[in-house]
C-alpha cells in the first residue's frame, strides 16, 4: 500500500523568506510524486510533479521540489515566500498499481505573514 506523510499541520513564514513544506512517502516501485495547492473554497490546483530524471523539479508560481530517493522525501520549496502563497498544500504519490490512483497526505497549511 502506498502512503504519504506531511508531518506539519501548519508552516508559518515571513514574506520574502524561503519556505519548505515537508513530505515523505512510501510506495512499491518507482514513485510518481505531486504537489497540489488548494485555496479556500476551491478545488486542487496542480503545482508540480516528479516522474523521472532531475531530482529538482520546477513548477508553477516559483515553486520547486526536491526528490530524495534515499530519504523517500519530496519537499516543496520556494526561495522567497509571498503572502499570496498562503494556502493548503497537499503532497500525493502514485504507485505502480492499476488505476493511476493518487494517495494524498493530510495537507499542510502555509501561512505567509508580512
Amino acid at each position, binding site marked *: 500500500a502506498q502512503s*504519504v506523510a506531511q508531518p506539519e*499541520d501548519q508552516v508559518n513564514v515571513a514574506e520574502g523568506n524561503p519556505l519548505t513544506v515537508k513530505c515523505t512517502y512510501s510506495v512499491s516501485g518507482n514513485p*510518481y510524486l*505531486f504537489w*497540489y495547492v488548494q485555496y479556500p*473554497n*476551491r*478545488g*486542487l*490546483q*496542480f503545482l508540480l*510533479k516528479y*516522474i523521472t530524471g532531475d531530482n529538482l523539479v520546477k513548477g508553477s508560481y516559483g515553486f520547486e521540489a526536491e526528490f530524495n530517493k534515499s530519504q523517500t522525501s519530496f519537499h516543496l520549496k520556494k526561495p522567497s515566500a509571498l503572502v499570496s502563497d498562503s494556502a493548503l498544500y*497537499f503532497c500525493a504519490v*502514485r504507485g505502480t498499481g*492499476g*488505476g*493511476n*490512483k*493518487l*494517495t*494524498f*497526505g*493530510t*495537507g499542510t497549511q502555509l501561512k505567509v505573514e508580512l
Partner: protein
Amino acid sequence: NAGVTQTPKFRILKIGQSMTLQCTQDMNHNYMYWYRQDPGMGLKLIYYSVGAGITDKGEVPNGYNVSRSTTEDFPLRLELAAPSQTSVYFCASSGDFTAEAFFGQGTRLTVV
C-alpha cells in the same frame, strides 16, 4: 477550457435522502476519480474508473455508488444519506499520457 465540472456546488440533504453528484470532463480522459475531503484528513478515494463501463472501489466506498456509461461522465450516487457523509467531494480525471490529475471545484454536502 472547462476541464472537470461538478454540480451542484452546495447541497443540504436530510438523513435518509438520496442524491447524485454530477461530474463531467471534456479532456477525453480515461481515468476518473471521486474523493472526499474532511478537515485534517486529506483526500480519501471513494471510487475510480479506468474507462467507460469499468469502475472500482477506492478506500472509502461504503454508502456510495458510481457508474461510467460514457468517457465524459462519472456520477456519484449517495443512497440513504448519513451525517458521516457530510464532506466536500471532489471529482478528478487524468489521461493516459498525463501523470497528474485535474480536479473539479468541489461539492460541499451537508447531511442534517
